[in-house]
């Protein structure tokens, strides 16, 4: 495979800010320490569980000639953003008094500031570093103070064998509330490496719901990082029913007192695909709480992993942190790796974790079938009940219904 320097050089015309000194130096430093062929990739926690083919088949072809926007919602309550092939954007219902949004290409100074500010966040993360080196798109989104907004973002990557590297910055100002639904519904063989940064100011709240239903080798590496200031709450649910390989790495830093982060996920993986999940929450101040809960269903020869980590700094007294992973294996050939970690440096905390892996309970299937319900439907009932607690806690009917549509489609096609 080509060296990263060569890939970078041959695609430089597409890379954001490639002619700016700061970004050139920043990227060259990353490239120096980045060897795509080294054993480091295999041993690095950010890449060792992802599909190696993704890294070996980067195609950096971009074309904006056939952009055609299709927004997902007609609801006036939602504003809508379509990101087409990572290059162009379309907006509807975006009230400029509430929200300011700019493509990164038009605010490169801001990009430099953000990179400088976040440079120590993911030092050894190959996926993030690759994204920084080959970055070609993204946007900056600011929700003004004391504002409520519901937004749907649809990421479309429908160009064969294209690769997108995007960074999106969400700034949620004081006492604001954002409901952000992001959808990945790609149908074309491609690769997207997308990182969202959330900055939640004092008293703000975000619910980040992500629906991933990619098919046909439309691979995705999705990373998010939330910085939570005092009394802010970041809630996230990743619902992945894709028919392709994906990685989901999600992080939160609780830097303000009484801030909260809940990173939850539901994943379905089948065939030969690999799903790599990771969450990491740092409790860096007093009285913060967090919940990391991932549940998955694996079939066929699927492989999945879930690494979860809670770090409690010595400043993090009165922390309340919970981690849970539960996976049902519907095939003897499916494989799941779970690694929960707790690192606690404060002495007055409540932290716990649990992890279960196993087949579906045959006694439950028997009981349900004995009432006249066939095996497929019985299995689907049990799968729905398995993940129901996570969906129910969203407590927003319209979102629960949306997830149930994707869930029903998945179960009808795959079980």
């Amino acid at each position: 495979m080509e060296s990263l320097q060569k890939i970078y050089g041959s695609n430089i015309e597409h890379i954001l800010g490639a002619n700016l000194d700061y970004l050139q130096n920043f990227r060259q430093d990353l490239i120096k320490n980045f060897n795509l062929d080294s054993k480091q990739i295999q041993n690095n926690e950010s890449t060792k569980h992802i599909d190696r083919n993704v890294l070996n088949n980067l195609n950096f072809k971009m074309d904006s000639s056939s952009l055609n926007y299709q927004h997902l919602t007609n609801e006036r309550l939602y504003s809508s953003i379509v990101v087409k092939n990572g290059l162009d954007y379309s907006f509807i219902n975006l009230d400029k008094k509430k929200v300011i949004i700019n493509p990164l290409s038009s605010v490169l100074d801001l990009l430099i500031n953000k990179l400088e500010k976040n440079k120590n966040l993911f030092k050894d993360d190959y996926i993030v570093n690759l994204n920084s080196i080959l970055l070609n798109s993204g946007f900056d989104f600011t929700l003004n103070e004391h504002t409520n907004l519901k937004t749907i973002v649809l990421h479309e990557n429908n160009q064969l064998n294209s690769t997108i590297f995007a960074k999106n910055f969400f700034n949620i100002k004081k006492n604001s509330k954002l409901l952000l639904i992001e959808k990945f519904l790609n149908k074309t063989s491609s690769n997207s490496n997308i990182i969202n940064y959330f900055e939640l100011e004092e008293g703000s709240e975000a619910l980040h719901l992500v629906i991933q239903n990619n098919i046909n080798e439309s691979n995705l590496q999705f990373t998010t990082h939330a910085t939570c200031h005092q009394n802010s709450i970041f809630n996230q649910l990743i619902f992945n029913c894709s028919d392709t390989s994906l990685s989901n790495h999600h992080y939160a830093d609780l830097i303000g007192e009484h801030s909260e982060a809940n990173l939850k996920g539901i994943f379905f993986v089948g065939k030969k695909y690999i799903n790599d999940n990771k969450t990491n929450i740092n409790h860096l101040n007093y009285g913060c709480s967090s919940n990391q809960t991932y549940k998955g269903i694996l079939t066929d020869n699927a492989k999945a992993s879930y690494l979860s980590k809670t770090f409690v700094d010595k400043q993090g007294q009165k922390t309340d942190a919970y981690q849970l992973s539960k996976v049902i294996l519907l095939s003897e050939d499916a494989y799941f790796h779970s690694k929960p970690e707790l690192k606690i440096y404060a002495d007055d905390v409540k932290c716990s974790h649990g992890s279960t892996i196993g087949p579906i309970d045959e006694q439950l299937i028997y009981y349900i079938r004995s009432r006249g319900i066939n095996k497929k439907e019985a299995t689907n009932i049990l799968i729905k009940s398995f993940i129901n607690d996570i969906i129910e806690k969203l407590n927003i009917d319209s979102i629960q219904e949306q997830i149930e549509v994707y869930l029903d489609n998945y179960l009808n096609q795959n079980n």
Partner: protein
Amino acid sequence: MLLSIKNLSVSIEDKKILNNLSLEINEGEVHAIMGPNGSGKSTLSNVLAGKEEYNVTSGEIRFKGKNLFDLNIEKRAQEGLFLAFQYPVAVPGVNITPFLQAAVNSKLKAHGKEEVDALTFAKNLKETANQLGFSSDMLKRSVNEGFSGGEKKRFEILQMSILKPHLSILDETDSGLDIDALKIVTEGIHRLRNKTSSFLIITHYQRLLDQIAPDHVHVMTNGKIVKSGSISIAEQIELSGYKKFG
């Protein structure tokens, strides 16, 4: 003839549990099987319901004229066979009402009939539940989740009453029940008992049989029926145990 079992032998992991067992149940009849622990009563229930871990080594079972072994678990239920479990399992996150609606609709669909809508079903379920002393709140709970032993058994009877089977097998449904719960079980049986609904009641106790008055009582030991007769057999067992039948 509703159910005909001829010379049935069943084993599990090379251990013979049922040994050349025969039994016939006609439409409208109530049969009771009594027997010591380990005599194969629950195995018989599970084999009839279609549980797949058993190895049927010989014999045949016909239900409504059909070879029961040609039907899988759900098809047997759709044909009208119901097992009230000795140990009903909890199904967390599965609400009682949609669960039972799915069960009723599976049966209707299998017989080419129009499925019942959610509203109509909920109304019917509530009525039946009230008649059996269930609160409406209970119907909002998950199947058997957090139920006491008695509540689980009563819920089995509610399911039986809703599904209206042709043959109900009650596997020690009366075990561990207080007097009030026992009344609900007998009430459930009396409500369904008619010329076409039959019952196979597995029990250790005479007190249930006194209230139900079965048509036939059988004694089962070592995997086979060793004695059949009237309710007087239950009285003998109550007095002197199973030794004389061994």
